[in-house]
């Protein structure tokens, strides 16, 4: 529990890898960011959307870390990206609340895949977060139909577009990948 306190004051500070991984419900502490493969292909629509929600939580959290290492236009873009992920999260929360399945709770923090200490590592994480989140929305596509599928596709596309813009900001080429969201 004390770790939550540490987290709450740490948002603007440069994150250290041990201070951002509190997870009180599970004994082992650090919660890894949702990976690209966590959707069970046989899981139902609610599970797929719950996974997308977990990915959105992680993305929102990550942008808090990313934003502090960026300036000017890139920082503005990070804020806009975070806001977009919050909108997806809120829509998912509403949608999942109507169902009977479990609605995953946000974590207090997530373990970063690597230290984010400067602009370059922040941009790298931004690309990775968008690709991962794209992957979770992509995985939701087979489990959805109609308007829900269109929403999942719009979310996948938005993530892919942001990943492309972050690559451009970072000077990474090519700025596109052939199959956004597809597990490598």
């Amino acid at each position, binding site marked *: 529990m004390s770790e939550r306190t540490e987290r709450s004051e740490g948002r603007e500070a440069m994150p250290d890898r041990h201070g951002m991984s509190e997870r009180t419900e599970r004994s082992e502490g650090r919660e890894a960011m949702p990976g690209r493969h966590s959707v069970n292909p046989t899981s139902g629509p609610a599970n797929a959307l719950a996974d997308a929600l977990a990915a959105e939580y992680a993305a929102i959290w990550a942008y808090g870390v990313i934003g502090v290492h960026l300036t000017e236009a890139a920082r503005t873009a990070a804020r806009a990206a975070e806001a977009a992920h919050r909108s997806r999260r809120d829509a998912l929360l509403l949608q999942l609340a109507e169902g009977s399945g479990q609605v995953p709770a946000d974590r207090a923090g997530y373990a970063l895949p690597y230290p984010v200490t400067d602009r370059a590592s922040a941009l790298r994480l931004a690309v990775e977060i968008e690709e991962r989140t*794209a992957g979770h*929305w*992509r*995985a939701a*596509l*087979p*489990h*959805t139909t*109609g308007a829900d*599928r*269109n929403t*999942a*596709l719009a979310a*996948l*596309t938005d*993530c*892919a*577009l942001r*990943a*492309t*813009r972050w690559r*451009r900001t970072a000077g990474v*080429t*090519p*700025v*596109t*990948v*052939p*199959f*956004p*969201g*597809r597990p490598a």
Partner: protein
Amino acid sequence: MALGGAAAPLTGCDLFDRDKEPPAPDALEPLAAEALALEARYRAAATAAPALAERLTPIADAHRAHAEELRRVIGRPAPSGTPAAAGSASAPAPDAVLTELRRAEQEGRTNAAKACAEAPAERAALLGSIAAARATHVEALK
């Protein structure tokens, strides 16, 4: 064995098909053809405007990869008469090249999104990635 009696006009692929008529074209054939046409368009543009080649070639490669994946999912060879390149022969200015590619890519994105919306579950993820990729191509051409 008579080839094509008066009552049965000969068509391309039923000569040795003893079962029944050829199956209806797969719903993804237009998208596969479009991916190849887009690839050809980018290759032609990269040739016409070498300064843009570094940007255009990865996108051409992506369209090729999409076409190959779509072909794999369709599970049959391309029908004969698959359209060839639609590239323009002249060498337009780079700005005009980009404008034209953006237009074609935007149209392709719309088509892929529609295909994704209508697809059975097992095809939805691939089509979603293709639609998203085409959206990123539009972005990359800005």
